[in-house]
């Protein structure tokens, strides 16, 4: 029998009634999972159903918070107006582009940096700690710092650097608004991907690496054929969690470009904000919310079928 690092309780477990013991133990470990999973499921059920039901209800009503005169059944009007609005399609595109780009950058760079950090170098501990610090800062603050202190074409640090080497300054939020937002969001989320991937790499067995090295694998080949496959499961987790959060990115857009210029940086979450908290048009915002759920489910099904397989679920 193999021993483990953890200690198995030396104290014998308390006696239970024979019937309960049998029920809980069973043969080969059958366990009543319902009472274990139950609380989580019930809580989430209430949490999801009540707002969902209210959102569905409101999406079929005329309900403007600022104008109580407007009330009544709206039929499909809220949805109709939304689909007739050209901003809806562009917001879907912006959402998908934003999520895809940030995922690609954070996972790609995260994996490369994780591999780089795997090699020993002086000050690795400190470097690791500094690398993850962007994740701790509030998104609103990050966006303000990036917009005003770094990216501002007159007063910002980047502009000064460009001027010092004689290049013309670049107007980030006018010429490349979505790219700028992607940059900021990637900066915020890279530490998360990096951390998970780096620690996953640390569990790669010595023997495998040694064997590869003996076979003459250089660092690039090592990365491609040994490290990346090992990272399969953790990449899946990173992708799933990041996707959920990135679909609802809102603060960074609100603070920097307010969805503009035009609708270049209006994603679905911002579109909903415009309807919910500028127009206070709860009916329209609810309809957009329903569309958002549909989109998220589509994305989730796609992800599950490609990614979650690796989780052996």
């Amino acid at each position, binding site marked *: 029998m193999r021993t483990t690092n953890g200690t198995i309780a030396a104290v014998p477990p308390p006696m239970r009634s024979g019937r309960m013991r049998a029920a809980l133990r069973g043969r080969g470990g059958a366990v009543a999972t319902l009472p274990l999973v139950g609380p989580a499921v019930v809580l989430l059920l209430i949490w999801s159903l009540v707002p969902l039901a209210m959102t569905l209800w409101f999406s079929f009503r005329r309900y403007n*918070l600022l104008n109580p005169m407007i009330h009544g059944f709206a039929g499909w009007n809220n949805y109709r107006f939304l689909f007739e609005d050209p901003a809806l399609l562009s917001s879907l595109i912006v959402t998908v582009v934003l999520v895809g780009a940030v995922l690609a950058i954070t996972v790609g760079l995260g994996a490369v940096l994780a591999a780089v950090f795997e090699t020993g170098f002086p000050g690795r501990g400190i470097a690791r700690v500094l690398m993850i610090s962007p994740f701790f800062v509030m998104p609103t603050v990050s966006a303000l710092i990036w*917009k*005003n202190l770094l990216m501002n074409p007159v007063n910002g640090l980047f502009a000064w650097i460009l001027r010092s080497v004689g290049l013309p300054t670049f107007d980030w939020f*006018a010429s490349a608004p979505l790219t700028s937002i992607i940059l900021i969001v990637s900066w915020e989320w890279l530490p998360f991907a990096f951390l998970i991937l780096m620690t996953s790499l640390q569990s790669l067995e010595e023997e495998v690496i040694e064997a590869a090295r003996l076979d003459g694998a250089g660092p690039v080949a090592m990365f491609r054929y040994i490290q990346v496959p090992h990272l399969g499961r953790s990449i899946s987790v990173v992708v799933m969690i990041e996707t959920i959060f990135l679909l609802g990115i809102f603060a960074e857009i609100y603070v920097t470009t*307010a969805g*503009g*210029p035009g609708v270049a940086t209006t994603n679905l979450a911002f579109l909903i904000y415009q309807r919910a*908290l500028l127009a*206070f048009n709860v009916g329209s915002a609810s309809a957009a919310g329903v569309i958002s759920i549909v989109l998220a489910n589509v994305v989730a099904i796609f992800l599950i079928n490609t990614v979650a397989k690796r989780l052996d679920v």
Partner: protein
Amino acid sequence: MRTWLRWTIAAAFVICSNAMARAETITIATVNNNDMIVMQQLASHWEQQTGNKINWVVLEENVLRQRVTTDIATGGGQFDVMTIGSYEAPIWGKQKWLLPLDDFPASYDYNDIFKSVRDALSSDGHLWAVPFYAESSFLMYRKDLFAKAGLTMPAQPTWAEVEGYAKKLTDRAHQQYGVCLRGKPGWGENMALIDTMVNTFGGRWFNEKWQPQLDTRPWHDAVTFYVNLLRDYGPPGASSNGFNENLALFSTGHCAMWVDATVAAGFVSDPKKSQVVGKVGFAPAPIAKVPNGNHWFWAWALAIPKSSHKAAVAKSFLQWATSQEYIKLVAQTNGWVLVPPGTRKSTYDNPKYIAAAPFAKQVEHAIQTADLDHPTAQPVPYTGIQYVAIPEFQAIGTTVGQLMAAALTGQSTVDQALKQAQSQVKAAMEQAGYTQ
């Protein structure tokens, strides 16, 4: 014998505790501008005078607006005093969400408050909020740069003249830009300025039947002029510059001219915050074809939601915070230049204020001449100079603002942007039931 003694003691106890129980705690939501921060600091005077306590909720403008609107529209009852603007006051007053504030004592002197300010915060014959500060807009310019180029600013500049000056005063190699204007999308950001330009070019948002007019000639002229002016002689990044960004640019010396809120005058004259102190001149906001609506009007005011259970205490605070005595208190503790501007005639009649704030007379003139009921040359069904006082305007204004920013960055042409704006606004007005 013992019984009546017990009753007497009980009665005395009840009377005493009632006297103590008059100390209330009120919750005040306010915006985080300088004048409100000063109010927060000085409120301890009121607290000591009346024995009440205040819980402060201080938030930035957009968050505050969202927060208090959600609360008042759902009857949440979280706040006893709300800081709202001249945009919300008449709308919420009409909905009967606020308590009317016409019953202050004579010592408060309603007539000392500028009529334009009082009107902006009233509807249906009642005053719904008392003004804490008011602002208009005007033109600020660098006297030193003008002198060096041999230019003089006329008493009432036109936009065409402004363009001429901007051309002469732009030196991109040295990060000096002829004119800085708002470009960041938002109903209260770039649209505030663009609305005044549209007004003075002879345009309006809606005709008497509430039909949007964004595809008319004045809009085309105004927006084309704005886009060209800013693109040719403005700073880079103009499409994300709001008030704060332009203030940063102007006070670090990068702008020769800046058309924006009168409250900026105080900032650019503050040696701690500005590098151009003493070099700034002031002129009325430029006009184009007609003089109507060339400068805007905004007031921050204190109001009491109907849901508040502490109306009497709240009213006492409102009276104190917007009174002549408060203004004198600020002058004593922080100096005359920092008193809340734009509300009371007595402030502007005071020679000490004029001495401390050389721009005072221009600000007073701008506020007094701001006519919210006739913001345009042609008749309109709405009030408001740089906004339209309907609930839907926040969303409409921001959508159009985004399209204007797209025109500014060259993502679309002016006509494309206006065409799109027209159809969006038309759809919104139909949905809201103003037009068929």
